[in-house]
């Protein structure tokens, strides 16, 4: 990505871009301010952000917006596990190996929050974490695990849905370490999937989750008591189908067109699906106040 490409791309969608960029002094001022806090390697993010400000756009088309979106989800998850570990209603049930596992997951979510905050620097928005109210989520061990499953599975879908919005060359340097942002997003994404699998495994214990048939992976669009939207289609549905999807890469039915016959259960479980940010945010706001 370079500056000239960006301008020529912008000219395609907005022929008056050069007029607008007479305001580019302020955009470049913002850039200069940022560059004090971010290494040169992070310039693509800073540039994207500066132009977004100049254009007045609020999309996830640049890495800064994607990272702030990821930060919101990680803050939500970290807050969720922190509140669960402190909830008096769970002290008798969230014990032993279960508590240790949740502490492990909480630790990862905090690490994600810290990493994203550091990468974003002064671009972190909002600067401070919102306060999250999870309602009756911690009323019982079962309800806690159901929420945990919903958040982890949604998190996996959310990261996957943004993979194409992070240029594969975008990077940031922190304390001498250069991070490729797409790689970092993928590395967080698979950790969320590990969490999701474990939480589902915890629910498999009948006394813990009352879901004796649940698997560590998502079969069809089965919600197992979590909100159905977590496993439903996003927008556009062609890009973000429901988890029951059996069509991939232009092959319309993987159950019958691969030379062997597979069940829809197995095909749907073999691929996780992405989800757009609007649908993810709607799901989050349906169960959490923030």
């Amino acid at each position, binding site marked *: 990505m370079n500056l000239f490409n960006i301008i020529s791309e912008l000219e395609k969608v907005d022929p008056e871009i050069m007029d607008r960029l007479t305001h580019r002094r302020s955009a470049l001022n913002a850039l200069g301010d940022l560059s004090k806090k971010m290494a040169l390697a992070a310039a693509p993010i800073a540039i994207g952000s500066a132009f977004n400000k100049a254009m007045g756009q609020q999309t996830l088309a*640049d890495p800064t917006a994607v990272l702030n979106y990821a930060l919101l989800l990680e803050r939500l998850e970290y807050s969720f596990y922190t509140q669960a570990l402190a909830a008096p209603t769970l002290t008798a049930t969230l014990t032993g190996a279960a508590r240790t596992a949740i502490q492990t997951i909480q630790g990862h979510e905090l690490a994600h929050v810290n990493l994203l905050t550091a990468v974003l620097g002064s671009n972190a928005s909002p600067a401070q974490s919102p306060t999250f109210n999870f309602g009756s989520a911690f009323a019982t061990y079962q309800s806690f695990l159901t929420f945990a499953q919903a958040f982890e599975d949604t998190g996996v879908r959310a990261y996957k849905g943004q993979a194409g919005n992070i240029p594969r060359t975008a990077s940031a340097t922190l304390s001498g370490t250069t991070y490729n942002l797409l790689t970092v997003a993928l590395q967080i994404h698979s950790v969320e999937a590990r*969490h999701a699998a474990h939480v589902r495994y915890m629910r498999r214990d009948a006394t813990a989750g009352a879901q004796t048939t649940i698997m560590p992976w998502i079969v069809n669009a089965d919600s197992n008591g979590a909100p159905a939207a977590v496993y439903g289609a996003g927008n556009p549905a062609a890009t973000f189908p429901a988890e029951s999807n059996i069509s991939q890469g232009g092959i319309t039915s993987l159950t019958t067109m*691969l*030379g062997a016959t597979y069940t829809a259960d*197995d095909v749907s479980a073999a691929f996780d699906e992405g989800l757009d940010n609007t649908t993810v945010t709607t799901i989050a706001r349906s169960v959490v106040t923030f």
Partner: protein
Amino acid sequence: MSNNLIKGSDEAEFAKPLYVPIKRRSFFMYAGATAGATALLLSGCDDDDSGGSNSNSVSLGSGDVGVLNYAYALEQLEAAFYAQVIATPYTGITTDERTALTAISKHEAIHRDFFKAAITAAAPTQIIPGLTPDFSKINFADRTQVLTAAKTFEDLGVGAYNGAGALIQSGTYLLLAGKIVSVEARHAAYIRDLLTPGSFSGSDVVNAAGLDQALPVATVLAAAQTYIKETINGDNVGK
């Protein structure tokens, strides 16, 4: 500005010629690995001791096709492994374990067959052949050995996909890789919990920054080579 990564008709994207020029960055990233991989390639020319086996060298190719072949090779390995696990279950396998491992074996077979179909559609002359697995070092009757090998394959798969993501040019393929890698991560977490409860995201795979592994092609192939008779050359994957 980066929307072009996910936009565009899937089919058109899929059918596009997959020529990819060598990127300077990836050249430097892998320049160091080339020497070792060349040695691997040459070692494929040495005479082979295992009677009757055909120890050819298989090149994964370059660009996105190289990445797809890379994934296809790994999925072939995983699918063959779990097929053996299900055909000769380890001593003491529980009903629950058999159900889950059977599902995993199906997922891997679907991944394998999907890549075969996708690469055949996109680049019919560049698809790698079926590989010959070598699981002679694994005692399939022993639960710990089987699950340890499964853990190795799953964690390796996750690290491989995570490392390959930034090598992929096509947004369509990147999303497909993303759809698969999280399922591999779910497998990894399950297998790890079977071996050691609570080790689903242990510190040997998830670092202090909360990041899973992202492995270079050469590292993955060096680990996978133990279980594949053909010598795999991944020098140009993603270039």
